[in-house]
């Protein structure tokens, strides 16, 4: 319990003082405000962009789902990468010999130190995403129209579960590589490539990336995302317990 509290406190201080919390909040809030606005003015924007004698684009008026969808598209790209970076950098202390020695000589079970920090990262991302999401819903309701509760809840839950899963994948990559830049680079590539899995019909009913579709998901992608999360965290803990001090750190 002590380790949980101490690690959580250190991670909260890190997120607060390094600006990561503010960064996440700003990104999600920005998309929360701009997504519905973009949906509202999309016909005008497209019309202005493509207006010529040969080409005219006529877009239908914005629907409430469009406001939420545009927020989520942006949030699940830049916001997702930021969220993964939060998880990866929570293990940053292990990339430097000096700070690695600090913890490794004091903590017997390393996962007791690292898991609470990951969980604080999850919590931070969930909170900041939710702030952005609430702003997006509010803006949509104010300027476009009423949104249905079931669609809203489904998009929110799908995104949260996907963010948590993506962070766990990043955490596993970092635990295995113990190199921040390499972990962020490979996690980013993976996050960009993974959504392609949903294009395969055989996989689309259960792969976690289907969660990015938001409103139209079934229970299977949720379950597989949870399974991937548990697997990543367990593997990362196992790896951490086997590792010794990096000599080249």
């Amino acid at each position, binding site marked *: 319990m002590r380790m949980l509290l101490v690690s959580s406190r250190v991670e909260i201080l890190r997120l607060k003082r390094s600006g990561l919390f503010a960064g996440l909040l700003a990104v999600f809030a920005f998309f929360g405000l701009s997504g519905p606005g973009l949906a509202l003015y999309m016909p005008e924007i497209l019309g202005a962009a493509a207006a010529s004698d040969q080409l005219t684009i006529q877009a239908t008026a914005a629907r409430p789902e469009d406001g939420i969808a545009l927020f989520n598209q942006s949030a699940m790209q830049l916001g997702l990468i930021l969220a993964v970076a939060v998880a990866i950098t929570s293990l940053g*202390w292990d990339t430097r010999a000096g700070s690695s020695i600090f913890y490794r*000589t*004091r903590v017997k079970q390393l996962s007791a130190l690292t898991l609470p920090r990951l969980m604080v990262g999850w919590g931070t991302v969930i909170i900041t995403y939710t702030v952005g999401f609430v702003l997006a819903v509010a803006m949509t309701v104010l300027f476009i129209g009423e949104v249905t509760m079931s669609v809203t809840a489904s998009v929110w839950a799908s995104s949260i579960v996907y963010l948590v899963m993506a962070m766990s994948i990043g955490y596993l990559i970092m635990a295995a590589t113990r190199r921040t830049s390499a972990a962020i680079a490979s996690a980013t590539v993976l996050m960009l490539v993974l959504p392609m899995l949903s294009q395969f019909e055989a996989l689309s009913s259960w792969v976690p990336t289907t969660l990015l579709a938001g409103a139209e998901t079934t229970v299977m992608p949720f379950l597989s995302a949870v399974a991937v999360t548990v697997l990543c965290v367990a593997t990362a803990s196992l790896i951490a317990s086997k590792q*010794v001090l990096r000599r080249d750190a």
Partner: protein
Amino acid sequence: MNDETHAVRVVDAAKTFANGAGIRDINFTARDRSVTAVIGPNGAGKTVLFSLIAGLLPADSGRVELARPGARVAYCPDVPQFESWLTAREVVETSRAVSGQSNRIAERKQPTSSTSGNGSVSAALGMCGLGKVMDRRVVDFSRGMLQRLGIAAALVTDPDVLILDEPNSALDPIGRADVRGIIAEQKRHRCILLSSHLLSEVEQLADHIVVLDQGRVVTQGTTEAILTNGIQPVWNIRLGNPAQITALDLKMAIPEAQFEFISDTLCAARFLSFDSAATQLKTALHLLRAPIIEVTLQDRDLDASFVRIVRNQETR
């Protein structure tokens, strides 16, 4: 050495890395409530040895024995690093908390003063000269301040074995004196393993010295034994008047010794050992038949002994 008071015993320890570097056949014992210095050239294996003792690296063979199960080892590396957004106080609080120390302090209720109990975060920081900057973030700290903070973070865990890897390499003379004082005080309460290239510091602090070179123990013993081991001591004898005897005549009188007149009034006398010098120096002083102004021992310091030991090893 009395094994009953040992804090750490390293038995046949070996650790080799892919590039061939590492340590082999390491055997030594460090006593409780004393300072054992591990000295050696760069790359001799000091940090690898400390990492083994601290449990940061597994040994390929051999073992490290601590005096009792669960004995606490604190390792302060030569370049301590901390999470830079924390303040010095938070670093030391975290150090104490993650090592589960506050309960232990409360349970033990050591009668020793704040300088040894280390239960207080503020006391540990104050002892290391960081009392006035304890609420500053570590990111603003100089390397010397980080070294002090590393020691404070180690002391607050009340370790049985405190490993200080070059603790004063980035410190100014005042800082070095402070750290020297801390080590001198702390050795009353725990075993300290120390490495430093500042051998004058080691000479003042260490009770026992282990000399490493190329991953092996070249020699070890008490500081006095290392200082005098294998040395052919040279005394400079300064006279009030020119000597009444030549170097050759002195040599004939004392064949085992060598004499050289650097000037009319300065004679250098080299003896085979401190034992032989104990009697022969007296004879030489008598034979010089001139007022003796000063007799000083040349090069009796750990730097000279260390260079001699390592060079002897390299020529074997």
